[in-house]
Structure formats: C-alpha cells, structure tokens
C-alpha cells in the first residue's frame, strides 16, 4: 500500500500516565505531498508529531516510513531515516550562535562539500539570516528564530519535514516567508507534514488534511474539499 518514503501511522495510541492523549489514530502521508493536521488546542496534534519523531513513547500501534518500522525508536535514529522535525516552540540552542545551530542540524552529515551546499541552500531560503550567523540564537526575534529552526531542520537534508505550529505567534510577513519556503522545499520533492492551529493557512498550503478532535481523527480528505466543508467552516474557519 505505502509507496517509497511514505509515512504510515496505524492505530496509534499514546497516553501520558493514565491519561490517553491520542487513541487509534491512523494516517498516511504520500511521498511528495503536503499533508496538514488541524484541530483545536489539546486535540493531540503535537502528541502525534512527538510520537512519530520518537519524543514520546507509543503505547499501541505502528509507525512506518518507506516501509521500515520506526515505532518507539530514538529521535536520532528516526532522523537517520530522513524525517526531520521543526519542533513546537522552536527549541533552538539558545546560547549557541545561529551558525552553530545550523551546524548541529547537519550533525550526521560527514561530507564537508554536502554540508557547505546545504548551508548555502538554507541561506538562500532565508537571506535575512546571513547577517545573524554570529549572533546567539536567543538574541533573535521570534520570527527570525523560527527561520533558524526551519533552516536547522533542512540542514539534515530530510526527505520528509514535520513542522509543529511553525507560524504560531508570528507576524504575517514571517508567516509568508515560512509558507513560501514550505512550498519551495515541497517542489524539490520533500514531503511535508504540517501541524497548524490556523486551519485556514493549513488547508490553503496542503494537498490533504486530517482533522483531530479529542485524540482521534474525526475527518480527513483533500484540503480543497475540507476548505469548503460546512462543518469545518463552522468549527475551524470561523465562518
């Protein structure tokens, strides 16, 4: 069923202690597509992303990428399979420079030439970061930090990029930059899984979308269709 480098999540359950966070969630991300996860605060979007990247333990169910099982593997192993995450809240290495943050993104890449090419590509996506390279990451504005977070994830040359609320709290100009970069890397063949609270932004950039409510998938379909769905309009788009 799954093509090469497609992400498949089957009947996944995660709980925090006795409290279930997500129950029986299944989803599939076709390689080369942009898929979004939408839902209210506490619906389980971040938990699902954390389970895929190995940051929380999966209680039941399976995660596979490109046909290889990844359930409950360490985050560094999951990165080796080509899945990179731009985490919620950015989680930059604040007391390290922007350049060092980007270098950390390419930690697994030994080839100096490839590293230099990735570095150039990141600065091409985010030219504003050029002058900020020697600055400490925590001295940057929120929007700039988010650019560093995305660039850091791209430095690992991922085949799939996960973004957890990348535009939350950002000024519209930064939202546009991040959305543009997302489309650019998608055009270069990188699969994107996007978590967004802003359903409109999410549905406009993605091909397919899953709606999470109270830890379960309640609806999924082509993003274009969901954008015109009366229930979605009412619950998430405020129309």
């Amino acid at each position, binding site marked *: 069923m799954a093509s090469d480098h497609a992400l498949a999540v089957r009947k996944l359950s995660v709980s925090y202690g006795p409290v279930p966070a997500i129950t029986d969630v299944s989803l599939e991300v076709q390689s080369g597509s942009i898929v979004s996860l939408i839902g209210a605060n506490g619906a389980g979007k971040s938990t699902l992303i954390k389970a895929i*990247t*190995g*940051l929380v333990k999966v209680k039941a169910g399976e995660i596979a990428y490109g046909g290889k099982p990844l359930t409950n593997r*360490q*985050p*560094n192993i999951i*990165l*080796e399979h080509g899945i*990179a*995450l731009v*985490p919620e809240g950015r*989680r*930059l*290495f*604040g*007391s*390290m420079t922007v350049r*060092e943050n980007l*270098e*950390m*993104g390419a*930690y*697994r890449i030994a080839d100096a030439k490839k590293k230099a090419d990735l570095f150039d590509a990141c600065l091409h996506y985010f030219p504003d970061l050029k002058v900020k390279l020697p600055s400490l990451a925590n001295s940057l504005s929120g929007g700039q930090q988010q650019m560093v977070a995305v660039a*850091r994830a791209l430095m*690992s040359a991922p085949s799939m990029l996960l973004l957890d609320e990348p535009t939350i709290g950002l000024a519209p100009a930064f939202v546009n930059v991040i959305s543009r970069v997302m489309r650019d890397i998608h055009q270069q063949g990188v699969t994107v899984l996007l978590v967004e609270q802003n359903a409109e932004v999410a549905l406009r950039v993605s091909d397919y979308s899953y709606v999470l409510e109270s830890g379960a998938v309640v609806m999924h379909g082509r993003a274009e269709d969901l954008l015109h769905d009366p229930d979605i309009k009412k619950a998430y788009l405020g129309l």
Partner: protein
Amino acid sequence: MQEVFQLLFTALQISAVYILFSLGLTLIFGVLKVVNFAHGQLFTFGALVLSLTMGALAPSLGHGWAAYLVAGLAGLAACLAVGLVIYQFGFKRLERDMTGSFILSAGLVLLFEGLMLEVFGGAVRPVPALLEGNVQMLGLMVSRQRLVLLVFAVLLTAAILTLLRYTRFGKALRAVAIDYEAAMLQGIAYRRIALYGFLMACALAATAGMLIAPVAAVTPTLGDAYLVKGFIAVVVGGMGSIVGAVAGSLLIALLESFVGFYFDPSIANLAIFVIVMVVLLVKPKGFFGND
C-alpha cells in the same frame, strides 16, 4: 605590592585545581542534569592511586618524570574504570532524576570513603616532590613544582575549553546540555555523548587530584574539601555554565587566599559561605546561569 602578587599567584594556583574540579561537575550536570556528589572521591582515588603507583615504581624508575607519567596514567585508567562502572550501573539509570542521583551519589561517597580507608589506610601517603627548589619570577619566589602544576592545569583547562567551543563533539555536548531532546532531533546520539561527558569529568577529577597530590596531604578524605569548594564555585558561577565554573573557581580561590592572609583561614571559609548566600539571594541561578 609584592604581597598582593604573591597572593594572586597562590589564588591562581588554587583556582586551577578548583576549575578542573568544577568543570567536571559542570559537564556531568550538563549531560545528565544531576549533581555527582561522589566527584570528590574520584579526585581522591586518583591521588591515592598515583601515590601507590609511585611507591611501587620507586625502585625501578625513581621519582622522575617517567615515574610520574606512568603513575599518572595508572591513576587516570583506574578512575575511568570506576567512572564507567558507576555510570553504567548507576547514573545512566538516574539521568534527570535529582532525588535518585542525590541518594546514589551520597551512598557512593560513603562507600568509596570506606573502601579507600580499608584499602589505602588512613595515614598520609606522601607523594614525592616532582621538582625541587624555587624560581624568581616577577619579584616572587615560586616553587618550581607549583609552577609546573599551575602551567599544566592552565593548559588542560584551555584544552577543555577549546574542545567544548570548537569541536563537533564539544558542540554536541553543549547542545545536549541545553536541550537533549532537541539535540537528539538533530541526530546526536544523546546516550553516547552523556557517557563520554561523564568519563571526561571523571578524567578531570582524577587529573586534578593527581596535580594536587605532590603538594597536599594525600589521605582518603583529600577530596572532601575540594568537593565543597568546587560545588560552591559551580553554584556561584551558575549551574551548567562553563564560564561560570571558571569564574566561580577564581572567585573562591581569591577569597580564600586574600581573606585567609589578611584575616584568617576560618574567616575565609565564612566569607565563601556568605558569598554563596548573597549570590543565591540576589541571583538564584548564579552569575552565568541562564539556560
């Protein structure tokens, strides 16, 4: 003026050992987010193994550099072996667990102290002087041996700081200390970095102990005073901060030598504790404790 220079030199020399010691505590805190109170015992163990090996080597190698080098390597190897055991069977399971690691390390203090007392005995084990005589420098009389120890400690500190600042391993270690999950998301094998960081700290403790051995009374309780001072240096400088560990150590050593000379050593200790209280009240995270 002469007096001030003399005191400054003394402070520098004491601080060099505190720095090596507190850098070790900082490394362990960075990678595991625990405090290893048994760090002082590794320091002592290094010094004791050095003295024992020096004694055993004396008939064949005498007291020269060769004997020091061989005994130093023996002390280092012994401490690394102990470090590996307490990491694998202890601290590895208690990462980020302040209470658990406190109980473990407090227990290890008692265990090691008892074992060392049993094996090495309570008497002072003198380590022969590495170099005899004094040198005249900037109008100061300085013992050659202390000068060599100081230079070695300074070079080692510089090497560690360079390693942490510029190498791939050093950067990974800092990244782990800032946010270990984010570090793993970059592909950094956190467990391996934690082990190497812990072993590096053990090696630093052993080296510090062996550097102080020729100018100190080597007994199974040698490390206790250094643990307290090293820990204070880390708290004042800011837990987890490398710059903080260096600055805190310098401050403690300056207080110790100046207050100790102009007033008396017990007032110096008092002053150190007062400083800790003031720092904790004014800046609870220490001078450089931000992340």
